[in-house]
Structures are given as C-alpha cells and as structure tokens.
C-alpha cells in the first residue's frame, strides 16, 4: 500500500499502523463465522464482513482493511477497492450521529436543501465533516428510496420521514 500518489489527501491515514492492529471481539467473530456458512466462497463474504467491521468500530480503518484481507485471503488492495467503491463504508471516523440528508429530486422539491443548509449552519460544519464534539456528521446523500414521504433524513440506520426544519430541530434535541 506504499505506492499512493503523494498528492492524495488521504494518503497518510491510509497506511496501516501495526500498533493499532485490530481483531473482532468474540461476539463479532461468531457472526463472522456464521457469514462464512452462508456463501459458497470466502470472497463473497467481503461485503457482509465489511458491514460487520463498520458495526464494530464505526468505520473501516486501514488496519481493518488488512485484517479483513487476512480473514478472507484477499489482498489489501482488493479489499480497499471494494471499500472505496461503496458509499456506505466510512473511510474516516464519523460522528455518533451520522445525519444523511437525501437531496435527490423528489426530496429537493419538498425542500430538502433547507434542512441540509439548516443542519450545516446550525452545527457549523462543512458537508461531510464532523462537529468538534464528535457528535454529528452531516452529509448529502442520493435517493434513499423514501420519496413518498420526502424529505427524508437517515440518522445512522434509521429513517426519519416527512421532515422539515422544525422537526429536524426537535430531532437534534433528542440526539445527544
């Protein structure tokens, strides 16, 4: 993994640190063993294993990429290629509450950008960034498949539908 382009802004974070080597806790290990029984080969277990990594540590660190590679007999490059292809795998740590605002057309005409702007302004964060207290990350995402109840904001795994600026303020009050 040493041959990253020097201009790559993420390059320093992408080198695995041997001191931070990770391993699944027993509960996650048990789930990983179950995943192995559901697919005909190890490579096909990659996506569910990465979901498990993210559930366990909140993001997919370079160390976790190495670890998953050794578990599934895949090169770190193969694993990282998959991690960086899919949107939902966090390549950096995110806040305790990952606020994902859908702004696609159906949500946009129901004023989803107002919610997005409001969150960025109120929490004083740039899109994609995490607040200093580590509580919130705000991102704009593509269609969440909830257009009939637009606008929708996904907080971690949960959908909050029919949102508006007042409701998002109330929701922020609950998310501490």
């Amino acid at each position, binding site marked *: 993994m040493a041959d990253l382009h020097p201009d790559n802004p993420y390059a320093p974070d992408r080198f695995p640190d041997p001191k931070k080597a990770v391993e699944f806790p027993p509960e996650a290990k048990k789930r990983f063993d179950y995943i192995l029984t559901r697919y005909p080969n190890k490579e096909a277990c990659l*996506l569910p294993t990465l979901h498990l990594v993210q559930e366990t540590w909140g993001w997919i660190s370079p160390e976790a990429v190495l670890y998953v590679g050794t578990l599934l007999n895949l090169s770190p490059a193969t694993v990282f290629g998959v991690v960086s292809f*899919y949107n939902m795998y966090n390549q950096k740590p995110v806040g305790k509450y990952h606020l994902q605002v859908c702004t696609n*057309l159906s949500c946009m*005409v129901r*004023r989803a*950008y107002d919610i997005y702007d409001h969150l960025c302004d109120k929490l004083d964060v740039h899109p994609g960034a995490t607040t200093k207290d580590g509580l919130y990350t705000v991102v*704009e995402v593509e*269609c969440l498949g909830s*257009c*009939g109840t637009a606008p929708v904001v996904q907080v971690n795994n949960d959908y909050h539908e029919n949102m508006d600026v007042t409701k998002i303020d109330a929701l922020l009050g609950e998310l501490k």
Partner: protein
Amino acid sequence: MEQIKILTANIDKPNSTSIDVYIDGGGYKAAEKALKMKPEEVTQVVKDSELRGRGGAGFPTGAKWSFVPKNAPKPTWLLCNADESEPGTFKDRVLMEKDPHLLIEGMIISGYAIGSNPMSYIYIRGEFHYGSVVLEKALDEARAKGYLGKNILGSGFDFDITVARGAGAYICGEETGLIESVEGHRGQPRVKPPFPAVIGVFGGPTVVNNVETLACVPLIINNGADWFKSFGTPKNTGPKLYCVSGSVRKPGVYEFPMGVNLKELIYEHCGGILGDRKLKAVIPGGASAPMFTPDEIDLPLNFDAIQKAGSMLGSAGIIVLDDSVCIVDAVWRLSKFFAHESCGQCTPCREGTNWLESVLDRIERGEGRKQDADLLLDMSDNIGGKSLCALGDAAIGPVISSVKKFRSEYLHHIEHKSCLPETVRYRRLDRAVAAH
C-alpha cells in the same frame, strides 16, 4: 379506475410481518400447490400469465426462467433484486417491510421452477436496514415452520434464502452489477453475452428478479394465469404498484390494474398538484425516464403505451414537478445523481455524466453559453449506447427530453442569466456541493 388491494392486501393488517398473520390470510398455499406441480408446469403458468418484470425493463418473467439451461455443469441460482435505488421508486420497500412472507413464498416457488441451488440471495440495498431486519426475522419464522430448509413440505426440494446487504451503489441494481456485488466485488456490470441465464453468479446460470415480480408469483399460482390476465390489457397484465412523489398533495404507493391513466392518477387519486400550482413536467418511470409535458400525460401507465409515447414505465416511479421548479435545476440534480453513481468502468459514461452535470450547473448559475443547449444534446449523443450497461442511457433520458421540450427555458437562462420568474430556489447556489 378503482384502486385495488392485491399485492398490498396484507400491508394494513396489524402485525402484518408475522408468519401467523400471513398463513391466516391464505399464505404459503401457493408454495404447497407449486411444490406438487412439475417445475416446467410452474414456469408455464407464469408464462401464460404474461407477467413482465417489474424492475424496469419489463422482460417477460416466464421467458427469462425458461432460458436457464437444464443440466448445466454448475448449480443454478435465484437472486432477488431488492436494490431499489432509482430516484422516485419506493414500492419494493413497502412489500419487504410490511409483507416479507409474500416475497419469501414467491422465491420458494420461483426457485423451484428454475431448479435453484439450495441457497439463494435477497440483495437488499444497504440503506434499507429496517427492511433487512424484518426479512431476517421472517426467514427465521419460515425456517421454523419448515417452508425453508431441507426437503420443504416433503417435496424433496431444498431451498434457503440469505439476505445480502448492498452498501450504497445504484449500479448494483443492474443485473450483472448485482451479480458482481453478490460475489464480493465492486458492482461493475459485465459484458453481455454471456447473459446471466447462462453464466451468472459464481459461474452458474442465474435468474435475477425484482421484488414485486417475485411477489406476483404466489398470486398467479393461487388464482391462475387467466385471473392475472384479467387485470390490465394483453401483454401488460397484472396488478401494479405505482409510486408517486414530488409536487402532489398525496404522494405514496398506489396499486392499480396495470395501465391506470397517468392524468387520472395525479389529479384524482393523488389529490392534484401541491399548493394548486400548475403542472410543469412528469417523469413517468424513475429518474432515467424521459419526461412528459402536461399535454402528454393523458395515457395509460403500462410498458407499451409509455414506450410508444417516447418514455418508459421503468420502475413506475412517477415524479411530478410543478411550475415553481426550475427545469434546469431539476435536471442538474438528476445528472448529479448519475455522475455520482456511474461506476467508472466505461469512459463515455464516467466522463460524460460529469460533463452533463457541469454544463447544467453553469447554465443554472447564469454562466451558460449560447451553444449550451445543443452542446447537451451533442454530449448525450456521445454517451447513449456507448457503455456496457444502461446507466449511460439512463443519464441522458432527462437531459435530452428536457432540452427538447423546455428549450425556451434553457435559452431564458442563457439570455437573462436567471431562472424563469415564476420558479422558486430550492437550493442555495453558494453552498459547496459534495464531490463524488
């Protein structure tokens, strides 16, 4: 036309996801019936019903099943496409979250008909976490009752289902992209041929069916092909879920016999346009379908009629836009989606979708050039049909149709450096847009 409750018959029942409620309503009868038939007979009934795939392309389901070769050297696979990511589409989510056993029963019957491997997968988009939890629970119930597992109902047929979660990639809704993703790769579509029915997932023959398609199968087995054909018109049969979103008073999922009138659906069933504004444009089949102007919408919503009118029914995701929406901004938003979701494999799509987005953005900002409307058409011409999968063609659908049908609005932007006076700003132009 009256609304019907056939695919959605169970969703309003209390505790509709439990297997007991489903069995009380006559559930799993179709599976019992189908497992006593020969697989070819099951396929024939589905062929006779003229069921067409509900995922977008409208390919006849029975024909798709019959392409699977008998005695293939590798096992045959059934995959359920639950990667519902087309903007404007949210029908499969309702079925999975409210009536998961209907899908499971449909998969048992379909798996039996095609001679599936004992394992099959529901590939559900990663964002539908709740849906995957509901499905997992329903699968456990079905296993406990003996509807999944070894020797189902004493028929000698072994079958099981695993929920495979995606991780946020629209392209994995494409048949071969989905297959790649199930195999643990990046979801980049494959060259066809070979078609998945011959070589698909893990090298074996593969059938990929949409959730709604599979949910139709138990109904066909229970009630017969003629009953199914009594809905809709010849070649466009069966009950159909329509998703209506955007500027209507009552958005949501509506079930009708295939072929409800689009105008009637918007004005009568969905309560008309929000805030009594004027209708400006309708996208009839998800983000990739070319849009209609208000004088074009008096037509039945079925595969053939919409195609004849120059668009496509696709996944029946109907997005309604009123006259407060700037067409350039709306098309920019869709282009941004396609630029974000292009998998990066084919150059015309990877580069072209980004250029479409940039040119639309500069027109919206009042920096458009005189030739930009024609430039958009020219770029679209260089994307369409020049990539492995349909994403490139999808991306140009809204662009071409909007330039042709709303050219004066584009020219207004370029001449006056502003949107039409009656439109409203739905986003701030000074806000940085996340890179993709």
